[in-house]
């Protein structure tokens, strides 16, 4: 028996545990790490059950090609040759930017780096993006604009030191359980808790103030809170003067009468007194921290929402010290890393801009190419639109399932079916892979080495515990094989450690993060040198960009609000025991048992008006489509709001969602669209 220390493949908290492998190379359990500073011997229910899907019979074990409507097994040589040949043909016929790559927030840093190197150095396109587009792209844009850096400003341990915790748009105990648990503990130890979410989530039960604002009205709420703070003289003038710029822009915006608590109350549905109470609590706290997630980001005005959170922190000076900060909780195990590695269309590693000629020269030299493309590429969402229009002819998708995760499934299906080439590299035959021309079998986190970067910017090791199943190959190897077949000789590595060495040399923030240094415990970037201890708290003395910037941020309503035909707001989200498109959790006994079916939460009054009983199947429909789900009649949601998780292929919430994007971040508005519901009998 052996035990192999690794990082959890589920959420961005980044818990560490040992996979227990018996002498027959079967993974038979997990042992939490007691020494890891983040999880300290704890795990959530998903972490405890994070191994059953690895050796599941459904695993893809050899390359496949679709011929005459059915998948046939082919050799790796044939598969790679076909992928490269077809990609090159399409580029020759339609231009380099007719192809796009979707990297994976589930794969390692090394793999994300290699995929973006493949796209740029080998295939000469900046069309590389990944699912951060769908979740925190508005964070990256919003916080980079305000602070110069788009990442969580503080560390997970800061939750324990906060006097006031403001949780807005995050169901923390379900989506980041071991961060949510810290909030519960902090509350018990005397911290005050303000929760802004119109669902009565677990944290709301114990909140000092539970704000149930209407979906999509966050800017009104936050601007009104800031008006209260300024009107009552509670702003941190010292901080504003010393550390920020353009304060006038903020003042001019939020002091407008339309953001008075009384007027805000009409828009948000929140009592004016509550707005005042929450504002005072945060402003007057010795240490107040903001925790946010999808409820802030996944809107057509997601960037505005993020900026407003940044404004609140700067206005009150609640940033740059422990127990404070603006803390976006990154969802995937490695979405932070996928961004850090430049798996996005406008930057290389460490957010170095592709449009900067000096930066391009550096990477051209490192990658031994004459010229790298200098135009910002397509995002996941615009690439799908581009495929639909026929502009994008080929997609190479690694570890991503747009058929379930992207908005407006019909649109996604049409887009993918319109492609001349769809290559899907994954571990299971997902609904996306089913549409592929070529399927390449990658591996899980248990079958390869590498690193993941957690939401608190901690780069941690992932270690191989068993050999790849069947003929599946570590994703980094597949990417190197593709590069070699394409005639590019500079993607030949012995192991992922070598890839990280290359990343170290090109990425100041990762400069000192080597495998040797993170053998026992990961390091938080920025970590520029081999002796640097890593950085738990950002923006201590100055913001990354110098002074924090306020902007004039006005409220723009959500793009599709209820009307006579579709009188409900449909909002989407997640549940504790399932994870995203369910490819892993639905193949795990305990997790699938807990929540096996698609459901829709509906308030008892709404249910009564429609004659809907708890547990009966209903149809939820929007302008995009219709889905059957079980009615869950509960007052967790307010009247007029429907909540659906997006984990269930057979009752897929994204059949219903609205493919409208934030103009800057291109993130879809998953959190608000207009819907209706009817009995199915």
């Amino acid at each position, binding site marked *: *028996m052996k035990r192999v220390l690794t990082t959890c493949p589920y959420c961005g908290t980044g818990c*560490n545990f*040992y996979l227990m492998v018996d002498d027959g190379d079967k993974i*038979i*359990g997990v*042992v939490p790490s007691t020494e890891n500073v983040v999880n300290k011997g704890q795990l959530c229910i998903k972490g*405890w059950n994070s191994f059953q899907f690895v050796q599941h019979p459904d695993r893809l074990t050899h390359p496949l090609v679709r011929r005459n409507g059915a998948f046939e097994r082919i050799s790796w040589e044939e598969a790679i040759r076909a992928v490269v040949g077809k990609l090159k043909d399409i580029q020759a016929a339609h231009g380099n930017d007719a192809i796009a790559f979707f990297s994976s927030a589930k794969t390692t840093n090394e793999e994300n780096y290699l995929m973006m190197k493949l796209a740029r150095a080998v295939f000469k396109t900046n069309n590389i993006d990944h699912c951060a587009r769908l979740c925190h792209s508005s964070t990256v844009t919003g916080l980079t604009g305000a602070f110069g850096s788009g990442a969580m400003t503080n560390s997970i341990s800061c939750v324990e030191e906060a006097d006031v915790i403001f949780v807005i748009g995050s169901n923390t105990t379900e989506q980041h359980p071991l961060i*949510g*648990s810290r909030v519960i503990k902090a509350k018990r130890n005397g911290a005050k808790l303000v929760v802004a979410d119109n669902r009565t989530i677990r944290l709301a039960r114990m909140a000092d103030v539970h704000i149930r604002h209407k979906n999509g009205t966050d800017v009104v709420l936050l601007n009104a809170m800031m008006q209260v703070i300024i009107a009552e003289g509670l702003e941190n003038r010292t901080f504003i003067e010393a550390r920020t710029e353009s304060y006038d822009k903020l003042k001019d915006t939020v002091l407008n009468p339309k953001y008075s608590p009384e007027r805000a109350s009409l828009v948000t549905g929140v009592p004016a007194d509550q707005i005042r109470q929450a504002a005072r609590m945060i402003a007057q706290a010795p240490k107040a921290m903001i925790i946010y997630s999808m409820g802030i980001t996944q809107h057509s005005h997601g960037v505005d929402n993020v900026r407003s959170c940044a404004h609140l922190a700067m206005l009150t000076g609640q940033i740059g010290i422990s127990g404070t900060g603006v803390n976006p909780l990154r969802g995937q195990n490695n979405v932070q890393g996928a961004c850090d590695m430049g798996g996005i269309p406008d930057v290389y590693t460490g957010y170095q801009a592709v449009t900067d000629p000096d930066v391009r020269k550096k990477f051209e030299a490192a990658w031994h190419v004459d010229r790298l493309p200098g135009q910002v590429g397509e995002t996941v969402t615009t690439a799908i639109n581009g495929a639909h229009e026929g502009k994008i002819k080929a997609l190479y998708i690694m570890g991503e399932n747009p058929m379930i995760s992207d908005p407006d499934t019909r649109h996604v299906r049409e887009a993918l079916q319109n492609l001349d080439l769809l290559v899907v590299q994954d571990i299971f035959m997902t609904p996306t892979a089913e549409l592929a021309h070529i399927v390449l079998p990658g591996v899980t986190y248990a079958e390869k080495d590498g690193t993941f970067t957690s939401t608190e910017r901690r780069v941690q090791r992932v270690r191989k515990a068993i050999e790849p199943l069947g003929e599946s190959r570590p994703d980094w190897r597949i990417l190197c094989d593709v590069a070699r077949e394409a005639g590019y000789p500079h993607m030949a590595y012995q192991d992922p450690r070598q890839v990280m060495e290359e990343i170290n040399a090109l990425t100041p923030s990762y400069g000192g993060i080597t495998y040797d240094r993170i053998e026992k415990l990961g390091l938080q970037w920025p970590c520029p040198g081999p002796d640097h201890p890593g950085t738990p708290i950002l923006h201590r003395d100055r913001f990354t960009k110098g002074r924090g910037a306020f902007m004039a941020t006005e409220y723009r309503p959500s793009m599709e609000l209820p009307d006579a035909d579709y009188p409900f707001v449909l909002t989407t989200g997640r549940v504790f025991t399932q994870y995203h498109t369910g490819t892993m959790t639905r193949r795990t006994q305990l997790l699938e048992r807990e929540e096996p079916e698609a459901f829709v939460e509906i308030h008892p009054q709404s249910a009564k008006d429609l004659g809907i009983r708890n547990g009966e199947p209903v149809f939820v429909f929007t302008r995009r489509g219709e889905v059957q789900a079980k009615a869950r009649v509960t007052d967790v949601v307010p009247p007029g709001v429907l909540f659906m998780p997006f984990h269930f292929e057979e009752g897929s919430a994204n059949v219903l969602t609205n493919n409208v994007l934030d103009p800057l971040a291109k993130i879809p508005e998953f959190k608000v669209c207009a819907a209706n519901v009817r009995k199915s009998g």
Partner: protein
Amino acid sequence: MKVIGEAGLVELLKSLLSDYQVYVPIELSDGTRVMGTMDEGPVSLLGGQVAAKPTAFFFPQMDSLFHFERGAIREGASKEKPICLVGLSAADAEGLAFIDRFYNIDFRDELYNKRREHSLVAVISGKLGNGARFEPLAGKNCDIEFAYDGSRFYVSAYTPKGQALERRISGEDSALPFEHLQRISIAQGQESKTILRHASQLILAGKVTDDFWQKIADECIACGSCIFYCPTCTCFDVYDCRDGDRSERIRCWDACLLGGYSREASGHNPRNEAERSRRRISHKLEADMLRFGELGCVDCWRCDVFCPTGIGIHAVAKRIVDRFS
């Protein structure tokens, strides 16, 4: 009585390798202490109770009952040597006794017994963790006990198997230091379960209200850690994992505090959240008391140490006593 030093004990354990799979406390690569083989990591006999429960060697997290393929059942042949576990705490040994009874009292669990019946179990107790911890002596529930006084182990054998092992130890000395350890142990033992016993009485007397349990349930994130760490928890699920025309029946750890554990096919759940939180605690402090006359909690403190929200059994017991006594 017989005495042995740390190095001597390691040698003795190595000599058992020809007859047993020997598991002792070791340090894994980041310092996490678990039971493992002596070549898996540095041996760490003096660090006190390990984190992951040693009873998992007899009731593993995932276990294969049998395969069946085209009408034929194939059970796994167990040609393995019997298990030798050295380094249980007294609490773990009590937990082992508890689950020995559970797996045999009404029904003989073959899968458990297959691993348990020829095993050798040894407790390590006394002044551990560099003097920072005193772990109570077991006095029973194991084959042999090694009680450490800071420089040597004092050996007590409780079964013929234990006595056979004891006979192979040559060192002898006065039993006085051992008696001293016993006295400390007894004094400590009175204290540590007091709060649990008091809470148990209050629960049995019907004093603890539903709203109390709802408050606990509110603070529970249903991670399952309390149950997965608990030596006396034996919840399991059985399921078939199908691969074409081949199927494997698997037993895996389950957790009674999960909703799905009792949810009926209609969707109705006879236990609400407050009920589920209550049952986890009251099983150990109420039900076991009624069934066996003793608490189902062996005082290992793992759920208190590892519960992310701080509602382990001692924490909850204290809240019960503070509010209802």
